[in-house]
């Protein structure tokens, strides 16, 4: 029987984890506790006095119709981004899996958008869709459609969804491709001998075997859409028009740093924190129970 080796007391292990603990303390625990603390305070706009108000910030938030509409917008936005980014990535991965010649180049090219910063991605899409300058807007107007995402909330939403999904496709593609390549080839061949054509094989064999990857990506994409699309929103619509793309994370910024309602903004970020903790728990709980093969 092998037993765990025990060494005498030493400071080395503590020294080794110290940098990680320091980073977590400074960049997560400290700001997070500040947010928790701020969320129960009421501060005047000039920063002259602070009042402890218990949960009034939260009560106000939950009775605010703007907050609920932002919540709805966030859900719609996340669903659309996750769905679009994942379905498009899946199609690309299925195609790339069949490419034999030049597959390296093809894959590298598909990964590039992931290296583009969200703000830059947003700026690119704004240029294409700008109602007066954009080439796509110009093409659409030639087809008889007047595109103006600065006035039309639906178009604004479509644009931020496209920009965000475009960025996330690369990431999803990588995972889907890795998932596809880990499916034993003989399974596909067995299905071919069983008489299943390419479409049928995809539905009956490949997609079920990809389900662990799909679930993992679903959580990752929702988290991405919730929290990391700030740059895209900021560059493309700044939450407008009339709050049509004002997702929760953008509202935190807007209310706190533009509206200077520090307490309310902190309360919102606490709620966001609870959501992301919930998503992470779901992911860890179910990723363990993934379909094994």
């Amino acid at each position, binding site marked *: 029987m092998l037993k765990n080796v025990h060494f005498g007391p030493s400071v080395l292990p503590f020294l080794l984890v110290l940098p990680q603990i320091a980073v977590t303390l400074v960049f997560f625990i400290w700001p997070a506790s500040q947010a928790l603390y701020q969320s129960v305070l009421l501060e005047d706009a000039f920063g002259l006095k602070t009042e402890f108000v218990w949960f009034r910030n939260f009560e106000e938030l939950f009775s605010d119709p703007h907050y609920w509409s932002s919540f709805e917008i966030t859900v719609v936005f996340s669903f659309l981004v996750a769905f679009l980014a994942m379905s498009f990535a899946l199609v690309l991965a299925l195609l790339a899996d069949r490419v034999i010649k030049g597959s390296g180049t093809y894959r590298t090219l598909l990964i590039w958008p992931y290296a583009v910063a969200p703000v830059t991605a947003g700026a690119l899409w704004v240029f294409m869709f700008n109602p007066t300058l954009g080439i796509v807007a110009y093409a659409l107007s030639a087809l008889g459609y007047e595109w103006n995402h600065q006035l039309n909330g639906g178009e604004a939403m479509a644009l931020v969804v496209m920009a965000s999904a475009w960025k996330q496709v690369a990431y999803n593609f990588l995972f889907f491709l890795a998932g596809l390549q880990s499916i*034993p080839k*003989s*399974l596909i*061949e*067995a*299905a*071919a*001998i*069983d*008489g*299943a054509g390419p479409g*049928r094989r995809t539905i*009956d*064999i490949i997609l*079920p*075997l990809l389900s662990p990857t799909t679930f993992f990506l679903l959580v990752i994409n929702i988290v991405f859409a919730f929290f990391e699309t700030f740059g895209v929103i900021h560059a493309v619509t700044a939450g407008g028009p009339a709050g049509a793309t004002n997702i929760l994370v953008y509202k935190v910024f807007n209310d706190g740093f533009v509206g200077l309602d520090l307490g309310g903004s902190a309360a919102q970020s606490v709620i966001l924190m609870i959501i992301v903790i919930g998503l992470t728990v779901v992911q860890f709980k179910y990723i363990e129970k993934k*379909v*094994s*093969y």
Partner: protein
Amino acid sequence: MARVVLEGLRKTYPNGFQAIHGVDVEIEEGEFLVLVGPSGCGKSTLLRMIAGLESITEGQLSIGDRVVNNLEPSERNIAMVFQNYALYPHMSVYKNMAYGLKIMGLPKAEIEERVRKAAAILELTDEQLTRKPRQLSGGQRQRVAMGRAIVREPSVFLFDEPLSNLDAKLRVQMRLEIKTLQANLGITSIYVTHDQVEAMTLGHRLMVLNAGNVEQLGTPIELYQRPASLFVAGFIGSPAMNFADARIDAAGKNITISGQAALPLGDGGMLEHGGRDVILGIRPEHLELVADAPDAVPMTVSVVEQLGADTLVHGHFGESKSNLTVRLDGIRHIKRGETLPIRVTPDHLHVFDPKTEKRL
């Protein structure tokens, strides 16, 4: 059930590598043909060409009375058992077996009947039919893989090293089961293996492949008794055949192993090869220990392996450098360094040309 005919079958990969250099064989209805050879010899490629998983570069493949070169795997009326079983991990055993039938569009009742019948043949219980493949042992998975092949009621079974993932004991048991099953169903079967014992025990005929060429095609006993080349001689039989450089005397009556005592050639000698340098092959089981025989050759012992049923004695003839293995019955007490009188019966000498490596 169908005849399978391969005519001049060739496979060249796009990078110019020739995997199969022309294979001709007619596999009779109900025959069990084993493709055997070392890894990389092209046996799996050839099987996959028959299955339709690899394209055929040249030649013609017929199953039954149809040429199937350009047909999809599913249209060839074959079933294949893969090395790793290739069971669908997310489906129950029942669904695994029923999947192909469902695609064929058979009515539910008939699917059920066929699956139950195959399960009964393979002794799979109802409870096992509801399980997922990962909940089964290796041998049970193997049975399911065979069940999936049986339910299709194909005209040809293809096996791609189906036993190589099993442990030694189970392999022997499944080997018997496959042999019995094939004999009972009478379905033409093509079986790929690198294991010569599997090949010898299962096949009606064996095709030995080496680097994409057919070395020899014949019954197991033909291959054992008259190997057509050095390669086949070394490949078939365990422990492997002994080889030594030798010379036939001018009269063609005797053969001498590098400076040692002459061994008489049987059947009136090999007059036409008199005076030639050759390679002599002798199987370990065709050497015997004889006391005081006039034609015995002294062998110096270097290693003795006791197997219980047999004793393997390794050593060499006198000054000769070539290693020699002798297989003796039962338990023998022989020591390292001893000299043993060994005799070869003339009928069991195999003589090969050192240049062409073909049998003389």
